[in-house]
């Protein structure tokens, strides 16, 4: 009896704490809530870099050197494939999706893009011209 009451109290306390944490907005280094879309840095235009960005380390997913706000990756289709798929990259003069993206986790080769690779922007990120908030001391290859 005593134990169950204690467990209940503990549960209640945990719920209260969790909601208190959730209510507090997570602020970014720029001093705004990360969910605040009016942040000018968020809305800064993506930079276009002819020839692309140099890789920082071996097997780095290449960064996207052009704006992607007009393409969508959704249930219907993946807009990136319009230029980067094996069927279109030559016409579009664009880099082809890496061969590794056609294998499933068991190493079986598929005749289409592996579902786990479908969401390009999970690894490949476009870049904005925002001024870095902290100095980057990373030394690439």
């Amino acid at each position: 009896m005593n134990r169950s009451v204690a467990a209940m109290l503990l549960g209640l306390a945990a719920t209260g704490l969790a909601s208190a944490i959730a209510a507090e907005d997570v602020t970014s280094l720029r001093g705004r809530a990360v969910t605040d879309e009016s942040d000018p840095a968020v809305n800064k235009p993506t930079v276009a870099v002819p020839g692309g960005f140099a890789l920082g380390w071996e097997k780095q997913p290449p960064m996207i050197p052009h704006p992607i706000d007009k393409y969508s990756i959704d249930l219907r289709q993946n807009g990136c494939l319009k230029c980067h798929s094996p069927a279109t990259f030559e016409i579009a003069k664009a880099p082809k999706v890496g061969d590794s993206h056609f294998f499933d986790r068991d190493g079986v080769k598929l005749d289409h893009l592996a579902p786990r690779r479908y969401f390009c922007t999970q690894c490949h990120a476009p870049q904005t011209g925002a001024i870095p908030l902290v100095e980057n001391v990373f030394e690439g290859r």
Partner: protein
Amino acid sequence: MSDQSKTSAPKPRARRVTWLILSAGILIGILFWGGFNTAMEATNTEQFCISCHEMKVNVYQEYTDTIHYTNRTGVRATCPDCHVPKDWVHKIVRKIQASNELYHHFKGDVDTPEKFEAQRIRLAQNVWRTMKATDSRECRNCHDFESMNYNKQESRSSQSHQDAEDAGLTCIDCHKGIAHQLPMEYDPEQDAPGQSIFYSVRD
């Protein structure tokens, strides 16, 4: 003198009647023609287009997220700017075709988002085919290769536009789904510029 007045007497009356008929004709003409054109212009507004819920809840909502609805300079392209030709003859032809859309509106063929979605590929292909056939005439009312400054474009766009111009391609060959969602059946891999399968009629 009297002889002359006798023979010329009916003349002013006939002339007056002629003038009367003529001016009445002109007046009625102006009223009807003006009225017709005013009525047609009234059907050529965004407000009119989205007075049908088929347009308002589907394609219009998608369009409000795009650059033709909201952008840096506030210049907008509304429904008729892209979907109704500007010159009179083609406009009338399109308006007559649109009576078919009225028929399907009252029949309720696409009156739910689900029904609309099921027809989307067919409807989209109708528009793509038309734009391909007219060399994207409505796009070019504003976007003209002649007036494009390739130096001001991103290198990617600049190159693609010049290649497209050389290859005789048209806007819609690359720019599908820029104002509305693409159909579920659309596959970007089969829509390479110049090799698209999406202009052919589906069975």
